[in-house]
């Protein structure tokens, strides 16, 4: 039998959870970004698994758009990171507390 949609969805859930743990635990902002990328990719995997299950290509197109948005997000995010690093020479998420009430 084929590897079912379930197997891909469970793998996607596992990868997403690993990404969530990384975002919650890591302090380095660049690594936090990488974990966000991992989560986006996990969701892409389930989109494409659903595309095969439904026999249509809409899921693949949606995954393509997710990739484009992720690319734009990384560009702006890393730009912000470099700007912060210039001001405080640190990439730790805990050092960015200027807005703390």
């Amino acid at each position, binding site marked *: 039998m084929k590897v*079912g949609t379930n197997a891909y969805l469970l793998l996607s859930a596992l990868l997403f959870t690993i990404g969530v743990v990384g975002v919650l*635990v890591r302090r380095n902002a660049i690594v936090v970004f990488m974990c966000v990328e991992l989560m986006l990719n996990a969701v892409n995997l389930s989109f494409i698994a659903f595309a095969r299950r439904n026999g249509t290509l809409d899921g693949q197109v949606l995954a393509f758009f997710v990739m484009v948005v992720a690319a734009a997000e990384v560009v702006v995010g890393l730009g912000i990171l470099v700007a912060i690093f210039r001001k405080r020479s640190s990439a730790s998420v805990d050092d960015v507390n200027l807005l703390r009430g």
Partner: protein
Amino acid sequence: MILAATTAAERAELITFVPLAVLSVVTAVGMVTSRNAVYSALLLVVNFFCLAGFYVLLQAQFIAAVQVIVYAGAIMVLFLFVLMLLGIGNEEVVSEPIPGQRVVAGVLALALLVAVVVAVLNGGLSGGAGDLAAANQGGNVEAVGRLLFTRYAFAFEATGILLVVAAVGALVLGKRRP
């Protein structure tokens, strides 16, 4: 239930899926646990290649190619470039600003995983996998392209605007103020 492979193609999918799944999970865990950010980036590249393998198995050849070119190529080079530019060494402060943050994060993530797994297993998706052979007639790239320029033409154009805004934004953010 898994070992009841019938045809050679389906058996091939299975023996490709299992090692790729193991490798992708191992690299993801390694990325989160690695102390050195450069190791994290390189493990993430391996993870992206695994996902490209899954996309080929799922008959999404175009997305697999885009995954390798855009993610493993462009985005990860950008990450490594910024890592090298900022010159962050492997010293990461192992401090917990919020007491018990790691434990709470683990518990919450476990709860999320259990919720999603239960939802997937109860979602009525246990039936056989579908097939894209009809939709991919004449090539996957052609079919995706046709869809992209007809039904999703507006979203495609909006994507162009988004990319321009992102490029201008990065330029403004990266500019040194006098």
